[in-house]
């Protein structure tokens, strides 16, 4: 998958000049009607009134955003204070997603580098090994992790049998378990884009640096990392964005207690809370945050291209 991303910005071939609009139309229609319009409707819903026991009433209100940012007490009649809890959930999600990204990078970069520098034949095998987990169902992987780390799971059993611990290590239903799940879920997402970047890396640069008596470390930080930065950033985004809105890891590994944004939103539609406008508002806030991250990414890419 070398080359660009199909942005169509390079030398433009014109074999089918004039057919651009009809050819792109199906994509516009499908994504427009079934994603853009729904997001706009969701935006509208976030300003509607919550109906008692689920559903919405078509009366405009800022109640959902008010609930998100202000605490008006148990009975809703106290003077508003800043509501920290939802901000905290968002902060926890950002922190967890950020930590998962860093951990994935620490393991993923050396792995990607190692694989990309193998001779072509064995490289295929390494690449195959890293791609398989990427294609395994995310739910299955989360379940496997849950099975492995629970108090009576194989890991604790073996450690107990081997006499290394006297009591099971309690990880399940903690923030650590969620972190482990996120890291495990999205690790392959980090390796593949960095691999693609390292594969295109020009090793003459390393040689030049060595000739100038740069140490290995200096070469790595001053020469290599800047050149493969696009791959690193792409990998970070592919880990960070899905981690931010993750639902399976907090639900299955966190015991629905270590709430992250994904579980908070899900609860508004599937669970007892039944507050659609609030769920829509939380989803809009999450979407806004992700778009801000992506805009920064796009700008850094544009700067890199110049």
């Amino acid at each position, binding site marked *: 998958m070398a080359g660009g991303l199909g942005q169509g910005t390079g030398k433009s071939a014109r074999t089918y000049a004039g057919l651009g609009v009809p050819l792109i139309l199906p994509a516009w229609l499908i994504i427009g009607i079934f994603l853009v319009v729904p997001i706009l409707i969701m935006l509208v819903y976030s300003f509607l009134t919550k*109906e*008692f*026991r*689920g*559903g919405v009433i078509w009366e405009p209100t800022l109640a959902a955003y008010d609930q998100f940012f202000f605490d008006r007490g*148990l*009975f*809703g009649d106290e003077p508003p204070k800043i509501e920290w*809890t*939802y901000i*905290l*959930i968002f902060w926890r999600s950002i922190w967890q997603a950020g930590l998962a990204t860093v951990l994935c990078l620490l393991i993923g970069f050396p792995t990607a580098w190692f694989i990309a520098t193998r001779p072509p034949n064995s490289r295929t095998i390494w690449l195959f090994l890293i791609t398989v987990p990427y294609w395994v169902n995310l739910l299955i992987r989360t379940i496997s992790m849950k099975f492995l780390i*629970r*108090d*009576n799971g194989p890991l604790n059993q073996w450690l107990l049998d081997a006499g290394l611990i006297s009591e099971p290590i309690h990880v*399940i*239903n903690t923030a650590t378990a969620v972190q482990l799940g996120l890291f495990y879920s999205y690790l392959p997402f980090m390796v593949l884009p960095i691999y693609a970047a390292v594969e295109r890396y020009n090793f003459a640069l390393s040689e030049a640096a060595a000739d100038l008596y740069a140490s290995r470390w200096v070469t790595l930080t001053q020469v290599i990392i800047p050149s493969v930065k696009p791959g690193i950033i792409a990998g970070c985004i592919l880990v960070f964005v899905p981690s931010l809105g993750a639902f399976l890891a907090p639900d299955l590994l966190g*015991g*629905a*207690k270590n*709430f992250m944004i994904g579980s*908070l939103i899900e*609860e508004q*539609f*599937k*669970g*007892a*809370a*039944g*507050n659609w406008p609030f769920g829509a508002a939380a989803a809009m806030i999450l979407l806004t945050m992700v778009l801000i991250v992506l805009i920064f990414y796009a700008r850094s890419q544009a700067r890199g291209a110049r």
Partner: protein
Amino acid sequence: MKNLLKTGASALALSLMATVATAEGKLSIYHWFEYIPQELLDKFAAEYDVEVTLDTYDSNEALLAALKAGKLGQYDVAVPGDYMVEIMGKEGMLDTFTDDEMPLKGNILPQWMDVGFDPGRKSSIPYQWGSTSFSVNRDVYSGDIQTTDIIFNPPEELKGKINVLDTAGETLTLASIHLGIPQCTTDREQLKALNDLVQNAKQYWASFGSDVAKDVLVSGDAAAGMIWNGFGMKAREEGANIEYAYPAQGYIVWMDNVVLLKDAPNRENALKFMNFLLEPENAAAVTNYARYTAGVKGVEPFLEEAVKSAPELNPPAGGNPQFVQACDEEVQKVYDTIWTNLKK
């Protein structure tokens, strides 16, 4: 590509045909999870030549939320608890049937016939009844468990090892019982005390989960957990050394009911199914599977011995059983706030 398209098209055609071929008679059930044996559904399907589909939910509130979210009109029957029947009735989600349409209506036990949430049983039939409290792992804690302190003010051994049902209705009701305050109270001090209680108890709880309530006890992820009596019995039978408590302060009782939903796509089959569940043998089959107690006459000959003698199903005399009440909007809003504050 051509072959790929062909394969895809034929796969699609096959699956469409499969749906068309069996579309003769259908029944769409919305049911609590792990509550009805597959064999019983198969039996009904065979007896009446009906294709049965079953979706599950894990709380009365989730059932209501799904129906509100557009699922009403897709299901024929659902199995809400007592107070939820009342709420659904008020929301206009239930259809009614006549006595002629339910020939076995006479099988209903008299005490479950004229119930407050559906006087005269016009939209519902009794399914199973049971109680909600909690089970405790006796390997972990051997002290007195007949108190709601186990959940809300637990002994050292159980701290951080408790699973709580992920439903506001039952968890907050048990908390009210613990405090000795009436349900749906409008007294501000009492509501504040309720909020403080659960906020403080949260630190002792490892997880919120209803569908996982049995598994956390069997697998050892939790050492104590709120649970329904039959589910607790199943957990015990699956190997957990646990004991189900009937706390002195009180416990929750409930009656689940099969209701005929409004705009049911297969009303005829729904009625057949409800009638089918009123047959003692079939009601007993549910009891034998789910370990609760049927609301139908004449089930005894079909019951397993284990069910008759189970400690979970035989509450001590003179306890304080309470039904969950449907609060009005004003109070429910406060309950919702307490619950949201708790979960976040």
